[in-house]
């Protein structure tokens, strides 16, 4: 029973991390219709910047702020300098460019910071919480992660649904041509979409990195799982990304705890395929796929 509780809570806290990456992918997808394979690498890079600040000043929250700000800037710069160049080109070109970015950013990080694992501070204590004598298997830091991810998802959903900026972002993604006719400054919206996704990615990096350690490749695996979470949830929906992350986290946790480590990813694949066979556009897809 305690074991089951532990597995569940472990799964949920891992799921929050997948959700964080998933959210940033959803944001970029909704804003610009691009899947950014460099999202994890960008988050890795902002985490390095945060670590530099934290080590220099000893202030975690200053580093946190620097990470978010640099995520915003890097997202915008990447869109303006690189992604803009392949706008209107065949769709897969943007994918390959983002893969190029992924490799390039990892190379740059290796060049600047070396390839060794770095210790990365958590926001809050990593000592376990317990109720009575029962250790839950989660920590205050896990709680903080969950709160931060849920808050980000909430803000994101509200911005997209209720604000003018959100409407413009959605219009741009839906049809740049129509949006332009309606007076939306499409270029600006695309940059904003990438900037916000960069910020969300940086948040994810801050939350994830204590449990992966920091190295140029530290976000690779998390990115794959975050991508999977976003797909399970349906790429259109922030709530979907959170739900997808939690489902994936719990499934992987039960597989790892009750069965063994080699079947973990197979169960991830099974969960993904099961969801997609029932709902080809993810759990939270709003519009049904166009079928005849």
């Amino acid at each position: 029973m305690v074991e089951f509780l532990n597995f569940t809570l472990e799964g949920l806290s891992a799921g929050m991390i997948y959700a964080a990456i998933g959210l940033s992918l959803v944001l970029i997808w909704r804003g610009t219709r691009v899947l950014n394979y460099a999202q994890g690498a960008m988050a890795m890079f902002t985490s390095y910047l945060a670590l530099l600040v934290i080590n220099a000043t000893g202030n975690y929250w200053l580093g946190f702020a620097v990470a978010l700000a640099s995520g915003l800037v890097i997202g915008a710069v990447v869109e303006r300098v690189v992604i803009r160049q392949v706008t209107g080109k065949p769709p897969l070109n943007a994918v390959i460019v983002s893969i190029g970015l992924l490799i390039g950013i990892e190379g740059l990080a290796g060049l600047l910071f070396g390839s060794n694992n770095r210790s990365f501070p958590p926001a809050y204590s990593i000592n376990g919480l317990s109720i009575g004598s029962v250790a839950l298997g989660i920590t205050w830091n896990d709680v903080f992660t969950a709160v931060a991810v849920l808050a980000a998802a909430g803000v994101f959903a509200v911005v997209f649904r209720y604000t003018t900026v959100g409407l413009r972002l959605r219009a741009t993604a839906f049809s740049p041509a129509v949006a332009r006719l309606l007076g939306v400054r499409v270029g600006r919206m695309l940059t904003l979409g990438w900037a916000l996704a960069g910020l969300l990615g940086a948040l994810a990096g801050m939350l994830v990195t204590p449990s992966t350690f920091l190295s140029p490749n530290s976000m690779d695996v998390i990115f794959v799982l975050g991508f999977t979470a976003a797909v399970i949830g349906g790429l259109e929906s922030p709530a979907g990304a959170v739900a997808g992350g939690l489902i994936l986290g719990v499934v992987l946790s039960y597989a790892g705890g009750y069965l063994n480590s080699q079947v973990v990813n197979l169960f991830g694949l099974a969960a993904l395929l099961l969801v997609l066979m029932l709902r080809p556009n993810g759990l939270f897809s709003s519009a049904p796929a166009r079928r005849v």
Partner: protein
Amino acid sequence: MTTTPPEPDQTSSPDQPSRAVPLVTKPSPPAAAPPAAAPPQSGRFRVPTLARHLGVAVLAAVVLAIATTMIGDYRDYELAEIAAFVVAVAGLTVLIGLSGQISIGNGAFMAVGGYAAALLFVHLQWPLAAILLAATAAAALAGAIFGVAAARLRGPYLAGATLMLAVALPALSTQFQSVLGGDQGLGFYISVPGFLGINFSLSRWQAWFNCAVALLVLILLANLTRSRVGRNWRALRDDEVAASLAGLNVARLQIVAFIVSAACAGAGGVLLAVWIGTVSTSLFALGVSIQLLTAAVLGGLGSLVGAIWGSALLVIVPTFLANFATSHGMTQTTSSSVPILAYGVVLIAVMVGFPGGIQGALVRFFNLRRRRPADYHQEEKGST
């Protein structure tokens, strides 16, 4: 087969197939080139497609056979690697460029082919050709199963499913360790056949075998893409709804495309096993799947010649950069990242500079030089 957006091909609408793989849905750029006009047909002798492809292949085989005797063992070995990737990339470029589906997980089907081949080699000692056929069939079967499961998926959802397939499948080798060899994998040490003599270099034999298979696969694919199936795929890619209304069985066409690409990946996996002499999970890690996609797009999506360019780049550039780094003293833990950074920059630069991939750029270059736009469109469609 179309690759570059500005150049429409004849069977598809002049509107580019940007929706084909809606990882990015942006409006198609207006066609820059003039609409394809039917080239003058008079005064030219029509050679049957198959014969023409065979002619090209025989010529290529002769060139390659001569080249392998001149370039030395190491370059032979590299050639064998390129050929292995050509097979897998060609299948993927057909899947994406023609049928409009995407796979980021074809490394998984390479693994199926490679492991099936190694099992047949270890337990049944079949001849290499039989192993190749059976292992390709096994990969095709795996592709069929996955294709059926994923038949309703599109764009990023299909990308996600195939990505997870590539991540998850290698775990089977530890799960069924006694059969699949776990971390150590399975040995697949081929030797030079006796009739070539004992002094014939193994690298050259590997190059011969892999190049021969690659040429064969290219011929088959070139004919397939020009057959009715190929035309139906293009119709499907350009407008799924219209294709469906026209009476095409969308799901079946997509599954067939998946099977073809999985079979090619499987054959590529066998060639990779022949090349390296062993199969193990790390040989088919996620990175390989990403590399296949990269090579297909860099070479020029939908173009079989592009698959050759993409595979060559895939093999030559990283080794070149690694050597460059070493010979310039970049061997410390930090400076060894310079070639990685450079590779990323190369990928971005090619995509920005040549949106239609290398083949797209070459075709356009020669086309401009020869000022024969009409011919060029002909070209585009069924480039080998």
